C-alpha cells in the first residue's frame, strides 16, 4: 500500500462494534425459506386458499419471532449440526416475513374473491422471494427496502434505526472483534 500518513492521531474513538441485539442462525433462515417455498408451490399446484392462509399465519408468527419453521429448526435440525459459523442480524429476515405476509394476504383475498389472477400472482411473487432466499441466500425484500423508502420519501432525519458510526483508526493496533 502506498498510502502513508505523516501525522497519526492517537485520539482513537472507541470503535463502535455493531452489537447484535437479536441474532439468528442463518441456516435456520434458509430452512424456513425452503419450507415456505415448498408450501407456496403446493398452494399453486392445488389452488388451496386454506393452505395459503396457513402460510400467512406462519409469516405473521415470523414477524414476531415465533415462526414454527424456526421452532422446527431449533428442535430437530440444530441439535444435529455444529454451532453456526456466524450469526445474522434478525431484522432483515423479520422484515422479509412482513413482506411475505403482505403477499400471502393479497393471495388469500384473491382466493376469497375468486380472482385467480390475484391469487396466483401474489402467491407466485411470495414463492419467488422465498425461493430466492432458499436457493441463493438473497433477501429480496431487503434489497428493495431502500428503493421503497426512497419512493415514499419524507426525510426522516429524526428517526434513525442505526446511528451512523465513525471508526477512525489512524494508527491503532487495537483489535476489535465484531
Amino acid at each position, binding site marked *: 500500500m*502506498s498510502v502513508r500518513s505523516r501525522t497519526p492521531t492517537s485520539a482513537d474513538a472507541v470503535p463502535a462494534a455493531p452489537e447484535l441485539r437479536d441474532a439468528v442462525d442463518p441456516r435456520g433462515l434458509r430452512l424456513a425459506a425452503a419450507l415456505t417455498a415448498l408450501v407456496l408451490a403446493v398452494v399453486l*399446484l392445488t389452488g388451496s386458499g386454506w393452505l395459503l392462509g396457513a402460510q400467512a399465519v406462519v409469516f405473521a408468527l415470523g414477524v414476531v419471532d415465533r415462526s414454527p419453521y424456526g421452532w422446527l429448526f431449533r428442535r430437530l435440525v440444530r441439535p444435529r449440526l455444529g454451532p453456526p459459523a456466524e450469526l445474522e*442480524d434478525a431484522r432483515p429476515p423479520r422484515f422479509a416475513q412482513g413482506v411475505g405476509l403482505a403477499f400471502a394476504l393479497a393471495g388469500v383475498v384473491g382466493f376469497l374473491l375468486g380472482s385467480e389472477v390475484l391469487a396466483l400472482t401474489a402467491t407466485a411473487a411470495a414463492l419467488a422471494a422465498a425461493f430466492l432466499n432458499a436457493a441463493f441466500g*438473497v433477501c429480496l425484500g431487503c434489497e428493495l427496502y*431502500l428503493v421503497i423508502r426512497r419512493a415514499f420519501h419524507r*426525510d426522516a432525519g429524526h*428517526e*434513525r434505526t442505526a446511528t451512523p458510526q*465513525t471508526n477512525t483508526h489512524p494508527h491503532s493496533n487495537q483489535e476489535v472483534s465484531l
Partner: protein
Amino acid sequence: MPVPGLVALVGALAAACLVALWLRRAPRRLQSAPSPSPRASDVELLGTSELGAELGERATLVQFSTAFCQPCRATRRILDDVARAVPGVAHIEVDAESHLELVRRLDIRRTPTVLVLDEAGRVVRRASGQPRKVDVLQALDAAVS
C-alpha cells in the same frame, strides 16, 4: 386450477433465477465515479456536515447501510479493517434511511453502497453491493494518488 398454477410456479422460479443472476452480475468493483465529465460542478463533494463525522486525512470510505441489509455487516468489517490498516483513512457508516436527501442526491439504490472520497471529500469511486477488500485497497490507492 392446476394448469395456471403450474404456469405461475414455473414463472416464479424462473423469475427468481433471473433476479439472482442479475444481482450476482451487478458490478462489485469500485467504479470511477460517476460521470467522466471534467466539469467541476459534476463532482460530488461531501463533508462533515452531510456525513456527521470527520473525514479521513487522506481518504474516507463512506458506507451507506440500512437496518434491513444483510451484506452491510460484512462490508463494515472489511472497511473497518482497511481503515485500521491504512493510516489517514476513515470509515464512516451512514444510515441511509435517516439521510434520504443525501441518498437521492447521490442516487444510491442499494445497500451497502460504498463511496471512496479523496482528502477534499470528492467522490472518486463508488460500488454497490459488498466490495472485495483488494478492490477497496486499489480504489484507495487511486484516491490518494
